[in-house]
């Protein structure tokens, strides 16, 4: 972990001191924040290319100059994996982009992913000196992270982190999403013999099946997975732990500890009349058909029903991903139906902004009551009710209250229900000793992420019940450290 002593030692390096002196602090604060360049909204809603196109080197250096290289870099405290932010930003200012990428990789396995999908505005950037003290927009830390990671990838000179001597101890990671990949990377760096087991045919979990190409191209995830392979991590796809082989069988094959990062699998539905009509999907199904199975691409066999009038129920990032995907697949009317107001919406501001620009309709303070269908069962209409905001509820958000008599029908041919997920019971069911909460998430020790079974650790959505990529990665790293301690104590190292 990064300590104040290390930070101050780093900050006192001659190159940092020189860089600080090269421009006056007051002049740094006068530099305008660079906006992320993006594809034109009309053009992009007709393609699946990335919306954000990334900083040019000039923009990145300029943006990095805004960073004041604070004595007390509060931004780091806002990062779930404690990236040494000023160090990598100052490397960019220096023009050493590959060096910046190396700094990122010391603590973050997937910088190109995090630079794209982290909610920096509520993490590092919310703790930036500009935000806290100057009442100015924060340094674009996320955009700079993405820049450095992309530069490294495009240069073809991808650095592979140093690995400690192999100790031959086998350890298993269950699930190849962000939590699992982060745990795998750290354990491999410590010298362990790591195998990642994945139930689907592709590695990457939610990064592949969930987040669309226009926000996170699969190619970027693949490059990060290649780096893990170079670290010696093995991947077993088409392998459902608990079924294809049990934890006990894996133990007898020599695996000494396990990390469960299998995500929160089961999509929630509202359980309202007509919800099983044809053309009504969970966001998981809709996005998986398109992102993982290639349903919108020529030559792929998987079909999807995606029509002209598409309603997405919910206000989170997955809802935004779904509605913007529907638009790209040809929807004339793509709308969000959300029971609270714009202010309560859990999606990232950037995603909402992009959606608005792309012509997505927001029907806030509306709630679906039931669906109607044609004789073939294809959904035709949704009956919605208008809502009002009442007193704050347990989540601290104002509770939506139905307005009596306000019901009306909306024509739809496709509906995507995106109201969250519940933990997947498959693995817990095969382990009677594994303690779960009443919501079905796994009970873990907060510091070590150890479950009620001593060689089993867990993190990400199977513990949190629905969170972010970076929090899952933070869990993976924390668990890797705890698994290392556990194995030091319980396994005789060769």
């Amino acid at each position, binding site marked *: 972990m990064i300590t104040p002593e290390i930070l101050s030692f780093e900050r006192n390096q001659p190159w940092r001191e020189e860089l600080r002196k090269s421009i006056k602090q007051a002049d740094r604060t006068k530099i305008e924040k660079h906006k992320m360049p993006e594809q034109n909204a009309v053009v992009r809603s007709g393609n699946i290319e990335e919306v954000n196109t990334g900083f040019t080197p000039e923009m990145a250096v300029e943006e990095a100059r805004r960073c004041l290289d604070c004595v007390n870099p509060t931004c780091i405290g806002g990062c779930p994996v404690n990236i040494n932010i000023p160090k990598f930003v100052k490397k960019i200012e220096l023009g050493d982009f590959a060096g910046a990428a190396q700094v990122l990789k010391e603590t973050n396995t997937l910088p190109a992913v995090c630079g794209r999908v982290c909610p920096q505005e509520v993490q590092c950037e919310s703790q930036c000196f500009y935000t806290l003290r100057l009442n100015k927009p924060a340094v674009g830390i996320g955009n700079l992270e993405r820049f450095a990671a992309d530069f490294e990838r495009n240069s073809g000179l991808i650095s592979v982190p140093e690995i400690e001597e192999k100790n031959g101890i086998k350890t298993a990671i269950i699930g190849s999403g962000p939590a699992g990949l982060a745990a795998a990377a750290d354990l491999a760096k410590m010298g362990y013999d790591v195998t990642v087991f994945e*139930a*689907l*045919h592709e590695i990457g979990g939610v990064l592949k*099946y969930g987040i669309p190409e226009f926000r996170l191209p699969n190619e970027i995830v693949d490059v990060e997975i290649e780096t893990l392979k170079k670290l010696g991590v093995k991947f077993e*796809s*088409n*392998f*459902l732990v608990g*079924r*294809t*082989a*049990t934890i006990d069988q894996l133990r007898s094959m020599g695996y000494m500890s396990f990390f469960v990062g299998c*995500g929160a*699998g*089961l*999509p929630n*539905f509202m*359980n309202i009349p007509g*919800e*099983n*009509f*044809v*053309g009504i*999907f*969970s966001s*998981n*199904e809709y996005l*998986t*058909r398109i992102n993982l*199975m*290639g*349903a*919108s*691409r*020529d*030559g*792929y*066999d*998987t*079909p*999807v*029903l*995606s*029509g*002209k009038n598409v309603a997405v129920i919910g206000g989170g990032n997955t809802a935004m991903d779904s509605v913007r995907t529907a638009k790209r*697949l*040809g929807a004339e009317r793509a709308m969000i139906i959300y029971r609270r107001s714009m202010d309560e919406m859990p999606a990232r501001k950037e995603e909402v902004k992009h959606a608005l620009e792309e012509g997505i309709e927001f029907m806030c303070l509306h709630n679906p009551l039931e669906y109607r269908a044609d004789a*073939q*069962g294809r959904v035709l209409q949704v009956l919605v009710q208008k809502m009002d905001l009442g007193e704050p509820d347990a989540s601290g958000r104002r509770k939506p209250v139905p307005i009596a008599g306000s019901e009306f029908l909306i024509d739809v*041919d496709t509906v995507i229900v995106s109201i969250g997920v519940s933990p*997947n*019971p*498959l693995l817990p069911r095969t382990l009677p000793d594994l303690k779960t909460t009443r919501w079905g998430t796994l009970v873990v020790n907060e510091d070590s992420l150890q479950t009620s079974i001593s060689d089993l650790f867990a993190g990400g959505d199977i513990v949190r019940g629905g969170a972010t990529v970076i929090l899952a990665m933070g869990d993976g790293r924390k668990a890797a450290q705890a698994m290392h301690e556990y194995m030091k104590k319980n396994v005789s190292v060769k």
Partner: protein
Amino acid sequence: MFKILSKEFLSESVFRMDIEAPLIAKARKAGHFIILRVDERGERIPLTISGGDPEKGSITIIVQKIGLSTLKLAQLNAGDFIHDVVGPLGNATHIGITGTILCAGGGVGVAPLLPIAQALKQAGNRVVSVLAARNKDLIILEKEMRETSDEVIIMTDDGSYGEKGLVTHGMETFIQKEKINEAVVIGPAIMMKFASQLTRKYNIPTMASLNSIMVDGTGMCGACRVTVGGSTKFVCVDGPEFDAHQVDFDELLLRLGAYRDLERKAMLQGPFTYIKQGL
């Protein structure tokens, strides 16, 4: 990649394949299914495991050429490879001793029925079976079902083999002849609907194994959801077997038809030119 060890046509449209999958062969039980993907651009389709050999490390599937993916699968031969196979999925059949059990299989539904009938027989039940299909050519696994059943009635819609009539006719023959303690019905959704209507009339507890559309098969997508006893269940994690008298078969039929038009278009145009976004 999973190697095809052998392949044999049981009829013009139904074929059996032994696939090398040692871990699945070891773990599988009656009632389990797999998801496979024929090639790297294929869809994920669920298929019940109808047998296996843990020693040889192989599993057996019996498939009817019915859509794009099963047609593609039918083109592969022994020595070829299937891109992805994952399993065993779903819950294994609960096998108890209850007395006389009526096993009714429609068409290719006899394939998933066989391992269940075998397990029920082995547990000590009396097993009486009805095998039904449109015509003689579509009656499969007759020899195996006869080996595991105490009595068998064959029904064909056109009377080309066995008795002429629907599956329910054969079932009723058994029901009127002897006390049936439980029934298992597996086949096309429409067959299961009418078979379970019949057993409801006679108050015979009945289990059906549902064949809904799936994507991941592990609970993640909800494509396979079905209404059972008034609440939504996922066939992949809650099933595939349910109390047939509680299943909303009409809804299942509608959901099974979701991609029929798209599939028909794709079949007309050949396997690689799917129309993607029509309504």
